């Protein structure tokens, strides 16, 4: 669960934002690519479809034209077989040429003979003969053969008579507003005797129009001839635009067939053009077809909407997903951020502590070392001086006694210093224990032996009941110090003819050492304070000591994980008990 109240840490928010942005970016990119590809395909399909349409229409046109050309050729062949035509041409009776061909030409002009194949299309606008030099022979009466102005008529001429059919397209300059394009077919007339071209018949037709048969089609077609566009169905403005385009294309070397897209009034249009008379002596003319791209464009728009909608849905889905994913991902990240914050705080504290501890440690170490040096050095000097004096032989005996007392005091002072330094190190926590196996039973036995050997020990009886091989872990020197202190107390505070009882036994996880002695007991008031420093329960000049022994012993016992306590002190019996954890059995027999 997300708690909306709790603001996310900055890192988490930015992580979420980045994730969401990435997802959105990817989806947007995918959508854009999809739209691009689909649009490209639609555009290509539209172009291909229109091209096929154009090609089929042009080929339909070609078929019609072929039919007409064939019919025309047949007419001319028949015409050429006519002796009167020959006579007129060969006998230079050109005035008789047109009257001689009257019937045939009327046929061409009227296209009346519907039984003839393709004759329906033989409905010429004009007919003219060319003479042997390729010049146009003007008819005596142009009414029947289609009137042409002299300029147009002159353009029907050839420099040399062609020996094959020539198709051309001419702009007939009737008037600028109504310029008509004529399809002109020049058919050579061969002499039946010599096979030579003796003349040619030039016939002008209304050009076939693409798409004229299909009603409702939005296709506009026209002809480009003589550098002019003839496409009356197109608006004047659009004609101008298209004319400029085409002029550009055809002036840069004409290609036989191609297409381009032009933005005419009423949206972009796909324009196809194809040369109508590629191998003709007449100037090249082009069939121009203008197809509206509205269908393709609306299809593309629809597609764009579809893909856009899909993209939006995807985007929405992606956004929701990204939200959940981000929350999912963000949780651990958030936790991590929080943890790291906490860790940082903790680490900072720990570091501070470490620094202060290290400071303290350094200080205390320095202090101990300094104190040890400062105290011990003069003492050593003092002791050396006293020992040197004792070595003299010419002093009085009282002086020797005095000197030896002073020497004894220096020894005592040395002990105090040692104890104090040890305590100082204990307090600072600087004291390190070596984890060695110590045989406590043996240790106690040794000390008891030493105790008996002491010169000034009172007459006391020592009872001992010590289990064999009680082993503890610790530093032998310190353990020895504990035992020594307690045993010395038991001896020092004993009475004449008293006794000391030492028992040691191992329990399941600790070793228990009891040391009891007869003698003056410690008052109940003092009992609380006997483990404090510089406290001496029994004040007596006869008993040497400086009030640090018990304190030091207890501190050391505690350092070893054990304790030292007073068990009882009444009725001429004072008893201390030392508890220490038993050593691990694996190292049982280590020395």
């Amino acid at each position, binding site marked *: 669960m997300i708690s909306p109240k709790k603001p996310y840490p900055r890192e988490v928010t930015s992580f979420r934002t980045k994730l969401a942005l990435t997802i959105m970016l990817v989806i947007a990119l995918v959508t854009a690519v999809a739209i691009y590809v689909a649009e490209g395909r639609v555009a290509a399909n539209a172009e291909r479809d229109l091209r096929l349409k154009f090609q089929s229409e042009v080929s339909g046109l070609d078929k019609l034209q072929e039919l007409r050309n064939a019919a025309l050729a047949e007419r001319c062949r028949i015409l050429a*077989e*006519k*002796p*009167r035509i*020959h*006579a*007129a041409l*060969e*006998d*230079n*009776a050109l005035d*008789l040429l047109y009257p001689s061909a009257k019937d045939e030409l009327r046929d061409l002009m009227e296209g009346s003979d519907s039984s003839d194949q393709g004759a329906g299309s033989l409905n010429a606008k004009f007919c003219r003969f060319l003479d*042997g030099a390729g010049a146009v022979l003007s008819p005596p009466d142009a009414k029947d053969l289609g009137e042409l102005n002299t300029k147009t008529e002159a353009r029907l001429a050839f420099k040399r008579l062609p020996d094959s059919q020539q198709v051309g397209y001419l702009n007939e300059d009737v008037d600028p507003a109504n310029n008509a394009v004529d399809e002109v077919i020049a058919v050579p007339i061969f*002499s*039946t*005797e*010599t096979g*030579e071209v*003796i003349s040619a018949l030039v016939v002008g037709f209304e050009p076939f129009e693409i798409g004229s048969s299909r009603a409702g089609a939005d296709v506009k077609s026209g002809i480009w001839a003589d550098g002019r566009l003839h496409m009356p169905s197109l608006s004047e403005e659009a004609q101008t635009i298209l004319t400029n385009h085409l002029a550009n294309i055809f002036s840069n070397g004409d290609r036989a067939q191609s297409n381009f897209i032009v933005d005419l009034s009423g949206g972009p249009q796909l324009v196809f053009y194809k040369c109508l008379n590629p191998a003709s002596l007449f100037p090249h003319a082009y069939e121009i077809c203008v197809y509206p791209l509205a269908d393709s464009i609306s299809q593309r728009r629809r597609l764009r909407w579809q893909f856009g909608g899909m993209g939006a849905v995807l985007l929405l889905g992606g956004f929701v997903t990204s939200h959940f994913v981000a929350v999912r991902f963000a949780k651990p990240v958030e936790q991590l951020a929080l943890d790291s914050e906490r860790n940082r705080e903790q680490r900072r504290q720990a570091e501070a502590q470490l620094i202060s501890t290290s400071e303290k440690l350094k200080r205390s170490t320095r202090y101990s070392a300094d104190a040890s040096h400062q105290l011990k050095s003069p003492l050593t000097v003092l002791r050396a001086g006293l020992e040197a004096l004792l070595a003299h032989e010419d002093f009085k005996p009282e002086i020797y006694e005095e000197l030896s007392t002073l020497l004894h005091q220096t020894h005592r002072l040395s002990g105090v210093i040692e104890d104090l330094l040890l305590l100082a190190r204990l307090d600072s926590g600087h004291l390190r224990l070596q984890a060695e196996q110590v045989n406590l039973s043996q240790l106690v036995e040794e000390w008891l032996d030493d105790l008996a050997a002491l010169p000034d020990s009172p007459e006391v009886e020592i009872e001992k009941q010590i289990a064999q091989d009680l082993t503890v872990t610790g530093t032998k020197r310190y353990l020895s110090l504990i035992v020594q202190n307690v045993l010395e107390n038991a001896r020092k505070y004993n009475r004449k003819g008293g006794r000391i009882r030492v028992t040691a036994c191992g329990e399941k996880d600790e070793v228990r050492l009891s040391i009891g002695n007869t003698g003056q007991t410690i008052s109940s008031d003092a009992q609380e304070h006997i483990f404090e420093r510089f406290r001496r329960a029994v004040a007596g000049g006869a008993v040497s000591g400086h009030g640090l022994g018990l304190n030091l012993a207890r501190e050391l016992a505690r350092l070893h994980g054990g304790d030292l306590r007073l068990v009882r002190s009444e009725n001429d019996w004072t008893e201390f008990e030392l508890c220490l954890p038993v050593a691990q059995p694996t190292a049982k027999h280590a020395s």
Partner: protein
Amino acid sequence: MKLPPSHAAPVMAKRYEVINRGGVLSTEPPVAVIYLDGTFPKLSSLPTKQIAQKNFAFVPALLPVQVGTRIEFPNLDDTYHSIFSYSPAKRFDLGRYRPEERPIPSQIFDAPGLVTLRCDIHEHMRGLILVLNTPHFVVSDPSGRFRLSGLPPGRYVLKAWIDSKTTRTQDIELKNGETAHVDFP
């Protein structure tokens, strides 16, 4: 005189046809018409000549006549013929007629020049009529030999028509009772 070599096998005398070679009409085998140019008194009546259509050909295929001569065109084939000419020297059109047609269709040729005869139905048929001002003319034989006789003395130009585009000329002086030899190159 020298004539272009013949391309056909030798045929009977006066049996030759008119051919068109590059728009130039000549006879095959080639013959020439040699005539004496000049002004001669017009005869009041000239004999009527004939060019028949026989076996879908004009017979003779080449006929020189004096200006003003009437020529009849009898149809000797068992079919229609339709003789006409678009030549500047004489334009006429006899229309279609059968062999039974009487009187025999005829034309008077009253302007000098070459007239090409054609048949509107049989377009391969060609005939030539050379209308001349002079009564003194002769057709050479295929080897180019000719003989003109009964000529009045005087200075003349002797011409040789070889084909529709070629006519050679040579000055000649004729003396009474003499025979002149002329060679056209």
